[in-house]
């Protein structure tokens, strides 16, 4: 049995007539201690769940903001094991918040897939999304995810065929990462609010609740995403931009992150 934190979260939010706001940051950005403070701040300011990256040298799905976050973490010596240490602390501090990892396949393979998922489960991770593992390569990861009680998250791109959506409905649970547009991560290009047709198809193929991501940086976009039928919104580069803008002043960084998350969360109220 996978963890029930996502299901519990979506049920609670539904009862309160809210969508989910999920910030993304890179674990270890800019260093271990500050990263812990950052992630705690996100939860305390109202994040419903966390989407967390593991730094990788060659992030092909990421734009400049997330690339730089990874480089900062790597330069401060953060590697996968340090990330698991940080994740364990976050889990201790926040027992109920769903924690998802978003990372690249080579980090998983270098550890051995079994070993990586076992370590992630031990650190209290609920879900894993591998940016460069499409449905077609996903089966062996899904099998091991299930053995470790972890949700394997799949991506529904705006150009997804019915065949792809059907398979996502059958193979993944927890939530579905709904891509708001083509391209790489970043606020340079804004999200496109999904067509009602796509949301209807997601319902038809019974995919796990869709969280819309890519290009989300304002409360208006969050509100639009949820009104269009998404279960919530993920905001990565906008969150990481606040870290990058305040690297020399941690107090201001945390204060700015806090107010950003509060505003984005407020926009999830239907």
């Amino acid at each position, binding site marked *: 049995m996978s963890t029930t934190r996502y299901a519990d979260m979506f049920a609670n939010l539904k009862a309160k007539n809210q969508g989910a706001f999920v910030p993304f940051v890179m674990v270890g950005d800019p260093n271990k201690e500050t990263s812990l403070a950052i992630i705690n701040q996100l939860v305390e300011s109202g994040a419903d769940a966390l989407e967390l990256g593991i730094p990788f040298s060659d992030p*092909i799905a990421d734009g400049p903001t997330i690339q730089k976050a990874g480089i900062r973490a790597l330069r401060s010596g953060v590697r996968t094991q340090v990330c698991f240490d940080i994740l364990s602390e976050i889990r201790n501090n926040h027992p109920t918040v769903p924690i998802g990892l978003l990372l690249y396949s080579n980090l998983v393979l270098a*550890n051995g897939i079994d070993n990586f998922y076992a370590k992630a489960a031990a650190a209290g991770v609920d879900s894993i999304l591998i940016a460069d593992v499409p449905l077609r390569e996903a089966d062996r990861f899904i099998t091991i995810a299930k053995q470790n009680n972890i949700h394997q998250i799949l991506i529904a791109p705006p150009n997804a065929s019915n065949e792809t959506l059907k398979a996502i409905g059958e193979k993944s649970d927890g939530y579905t990462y709904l891509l708001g547009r083509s391209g790489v991560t970043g606020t340079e290009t804004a999200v496109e609010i999904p067509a009602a047709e796509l949301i209807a198809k997601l319902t038809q193929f019974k995919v796990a609740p869709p969280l819309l991501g890519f290009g989300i940086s304002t409360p208006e976009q969050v509100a639009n995403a949820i009104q269009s039928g998404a279960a919530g919104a993920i905001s990565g580069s906008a969150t990481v931009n606040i870290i990058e803008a305040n690297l020399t002043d941690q107090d201001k960084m945390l204060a700015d992150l806090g107010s950003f998350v509060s505003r984005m969360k407020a926009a999830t109220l239907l």
Partner: protein
Amino acid sequence: MNKLDSKFGDFGGMYVPELLVPALDQLEQAFLDAKEDPSFQKEFMGLLKDYAGRPTAMTLTRNIVSNPLVKLYLKREDLLHGGAHKTNQVLGQALLTKRMGKTEVIAETGAGQHGVATALACALLGLKARIYMGAKDIERQSPNVFRMRLMGAEVIPVNSGSGTLKDAVNEAMRDWSANYDKAHYLLGTAAGPHPFPTIVREYHRMIGEETRAQIMEKEGRLPDAVVACVGGGSNAIGMFADFIDEPSVRLIGVEPAGKGIHTKEHGATIVTGTKGVLHGAYTYIMQDKDGQIEESYSVSAGLDYPAVGPQHAFLAETGRAEYYAITDEEALNAFQLLAKKEGIIPALEPAHALAHALNMADEATEETIIVLNLSGRGDKDLEHVVKILGDKL
């Protein structure tokens, strides 16, 4: 699902964002349709012959080999229009681009040879090219940068990461994931996600096919070995493809040992590498124990790549092909030797293969015929080599 096998044993596959899968499927379909379309084949073959200058010559060396038992032939891809083998498959993919109704081409380049080939094909066929090139490579290959710009391509410097080929590939893939509707990613080597390794091999396989016909004509038998340099592995797989099912022909790939494979400064992926995923394929890569990709190094920009085409990984693992590594110094010696003894200035990339072929020639104790794929000419390297050798010449 894929129409062609996307893997070579466990190697290869499509480790890309879900977003790119439809674009890769579209490419696979276009490749298969084109194969059955006589008008496509006629146009491709016509361009190869009348524009690029195929078939290329095969030259028996006269002076460089001292062992009388050995005949060393050079397959002269250096004589191809553009100055390297790269033009073959670029013409094929550029025609596929048009067939898919796309008007723009994205490419990456290391030494600049693939960039030049892309620029010339796009100029010829009326496509708009933008080419990502590592900032460090732009510096060491400036004549090629000028060539690309002269032929109307936009050259975009890449400063992220190590500023070399791998980072240029990252940027090209990022661009493609935003623009696949109108742009084709014209990948330059036999690496990357399916179907690129297969398409690039098939559009270079005339190298081996011509070699077979030419050696049969000259010698009446197959060669004992074919030798080619391996960065991503496109010229080597083009040479190997027609001989894979001929067990008497040794297939020999030569990787860059840089400053030595015991140092961190090399690009000998197969010889020293571990398995992992880079740029969409499961293959041999250079990485640390955590799976972070390590920067490769070679005096030759075209071999400076920390992964290798997945079919080479498979040929190495099954033992069908052999892979060795040659240092910068050995390659530079071979570079000068070919110039002095045969009047041919090779690119630094095949100079690696030449150094290994000369070692094989020295050690041969029976009659041996070796064909070396001389994959490119050395004009682009002159400035760089002058800096290294200075007045030692």
